[in-house]
């Protein structure tokens, strides 16, 4: 068996497939990483387009562009596309590209599984889009007006588009579980000799934890939506109170997945930051060990505090108190990470290239989102904020800087490595400023809207909320359109530009910078020795 694998590898090396076969049959971690990133970029524009439609509708009170069900379907799609279609594949793309290069391996441990886990994604995306398209046809049933949380009983009553969505979630789940297995097997078995776990680059650590989180929680979501499917078609009553079930059970299953999912989105970006900030501060990362510990603590506590999304369902006082304290506890390790980043920058010789600008923005704005999270964690306060625009503002402040800006930072940081060309620094900076300013204009006013009582997921609003909504919508247009500049920069960098050195950034450390830019087809054919 070993010999056949070896010959297979050899054959690949000399006769790499070209044209469409190169991509469809690819077992190469870099090609698959590229596919992941391109897929994520496409989905980001789809999800962004639905968000811009939402904000156009909310530009004025009253119903202008979208009827209420369509509006809510766009809300659902925006969330699912962004989370499962954009952020997770983008993080997986970074992992595919960087992990073998960082740990001194030739490729991922399970290259064919890698191919499968990517190529499930386009199928899943098609299913997801079908769920949106189907209601426009006669007999297509109602639109998915539940939001991404898919709470029954409403989700049981939605038409056949919900079935497409459930299967899309199954496929997306299978894809991310397979990718996670691959990443863990790679990290545990293919590190260069001498690289023990505590010498592993931070990005690899964050992905190790992320992959374990995914393996633990995604199957539970799959189980939950499977039960939903059974309730819809096979007469079971898992979530039907009239048949002895309980709709709140779905909420528990969903958030058992949904809360750790937040850390799944966040941690890879924390990993990127742990490389970007030391590079541009020209200092090693402050507190590597505490960083690993903090991350493990976040992941562990994060697994057991899911019900803070459900304070209003009427749990007992003991239960809500537990979930409140657990949630607030998470701010301690997260705070530790933030302090480590600040301490890394402290007295470093800092320069502010685009990745570093994003990194500094994350430290500032993610902290802000974390603080509004502590507000939401407090039970009596949450009774007021629950399902208001304040929640929308909070989680966009956490997820945009926490996850997406981290991915942007990673893309700008490693783009020279991937393409062999430096990106246009001036355009990168313009992109950063329009993006960050647009983001803040969009979401900062939503805090005030929420505190004043504007509910989320509703197509219309009271006239008194008009001014802040106008502001937010204008911001959203700036923010949304700024991503076209990102697209332009990426295409421009792929097509040409100043030649990148192996060590593209002056202060960069790590095995990936020992390889040429762009790196060879098989990253490390001879494993490097780590002292």
């Amino acid at each position, binding site marked *: 068996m070993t010999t056949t694998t070896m010959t297979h590898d050899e054959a690949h090396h000399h006769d790499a497939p070209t044209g469409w076969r190169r991509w469809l049959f690819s077992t190469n971690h870099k090609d698959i990483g590229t596919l992941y990133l391109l897929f994520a970029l496409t989905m980001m524009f789809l999800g962004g387009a639905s968000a811009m439609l939402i904000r156009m509708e909310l530009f004025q009170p009253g119903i202008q562009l979208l009827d209420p069900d369509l509006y809510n379907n766009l809300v659902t799609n925006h969330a699912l596309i962004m989370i499962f279609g954009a952020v997770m594949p983008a993080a997986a793309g970074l992992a595919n590209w960087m992990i073998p290069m960082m740990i001194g391996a030739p490729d991922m441990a399970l290259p064919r599984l890698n191919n499968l886990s990517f190529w499930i994604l386009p199928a899943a995306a098609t299913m997801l889009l079908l769920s949106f398209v189907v209601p426009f046809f006669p007999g297509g049933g109602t639109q998915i007006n539940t939001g991404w949380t898919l709470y029954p009983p409403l989700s049981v009553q939605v038409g056949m588009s919900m079935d497409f969505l459930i299967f899309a979630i199954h496929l997306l789940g299978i894809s991310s579980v397979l990718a996670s297995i691959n990443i863990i097997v790679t990290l545990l*078995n293919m590190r260069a000799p001498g690289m023990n776990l505590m010498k592993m680059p931070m990005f690899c650590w964050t992905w190790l934890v992320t992959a374990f989180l995914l393996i633990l929680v995604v*199957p539970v979501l799959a*189980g939950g939506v499977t039960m939903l499917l059974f309730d819809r078609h096979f007469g079971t009553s898992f979530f039907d109170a009239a048949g002895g079930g309980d709709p709140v059970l779905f909420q528990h299953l969903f958030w058992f997945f949904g809360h750790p999912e937040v850390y799944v989105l966040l941690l890879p970006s924390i990993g990127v930051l742990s490389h970007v900030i030391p590079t541009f501060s020209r200092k090693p990362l402050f507190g590597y060990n505490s960083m690993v510990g903090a991350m493990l603590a976040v992941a562990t506590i994060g697994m057991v505090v899911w019900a803070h999304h459900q304070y209003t369902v009427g749990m007992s006082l003991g239960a809500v108190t537990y979930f409140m304290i657990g949630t607030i506890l998470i701010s301690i390790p997260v705070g530790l990470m933030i302090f480590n980043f600040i301490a890394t920058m402290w007295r470093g010789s800092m320069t502010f290239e685009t990745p570093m600008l994003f990194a500094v923005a994350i430290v500032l704005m993610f902290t802000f989102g974390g603080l509004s999270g502590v507000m939401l964690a407090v039970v009596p306060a949450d009774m007021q904020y629950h399902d208001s625009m304040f929640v929308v503002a909070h989680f966009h402040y956490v997820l945009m800087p926490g996850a997406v800006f981290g991915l942007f930072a990673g893309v700008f940081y490693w783009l020279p490595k991937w393409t062999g060309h430096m990106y246009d620094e001036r355009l990168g900076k313009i992109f950063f400023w329009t993006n960050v300013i647009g983001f803040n204009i969009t979401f900062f006013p939503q805090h005030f809207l929420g505190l004043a009582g504007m509910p989320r997921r509703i197509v219309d609003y009271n006239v008194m909320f008009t001014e802040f909504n106008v502001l937010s919508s204008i911001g959203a247009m700036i923010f949304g359109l700024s991503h076209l500049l990102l697209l332009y920069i990426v295409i421009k960098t792929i097509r040409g530009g100043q030649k990148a050195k192996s060590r593209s950034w002056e202060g960069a450390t790590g095995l990936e910078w020992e390889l040429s830019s762009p790196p060879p087809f098989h990253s490390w054919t001879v494993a490097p020795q780590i002292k």
Partner: protein
Amino acid sequence: MAADNQGNKKRTTLLLGGLVALMFGFGFAMVPLYDLLCQVTGTQSIAIRAGMGKGPAVTGEIDKSRLITIKFDATVNPNLPWDFGPEIRTMKVHPGEIYAVNFVASNRSNSSVTGQAIPSVAPWQATPYFSKLECFCFTRQTLKGNERTDMPLRFMVSPDLPAEIRSLTLSYSFMRLKPGQEAENETQTLPAIAAIN
């Protein structure tokens, strides 16, 4: 290197695959476990909701082993020119025993004004266990210009109050009734208010 590594990879992959299957099963195991967990720990909302329908049983037994702190809170809507508040702010009570406390209301204006007090109990889970035997909130109150009056409240906390609740707050908001509502037949609005209580 490749030979032993292949074995390791296979083992790790199988272990992780097993973990995935286990967690998928865990989701389904939650269905019976969730009911069980809720029965054991009382984490369940349904038990409380069911209790709400029954209301407290007046057993006449006094639970001397427990002391519940009751805090009184009073708010007056700005549309009502009254001062209103409890004579004492907090009380420690035994469940099952009947207590009385006076609220004082005075009309700052020169004309006769009618108001109605809306009670609420926090935490809301305690609501069904707090019974008001006599309360000024049952009826609308009319105060003549500059009149001052004592408004008595007699209440009891049910011995069935969940053990985790050690203190609760009774809050009153006094609202002005519009002149039209004052003239209305009392019996029409009373059942609605009684339902709140």
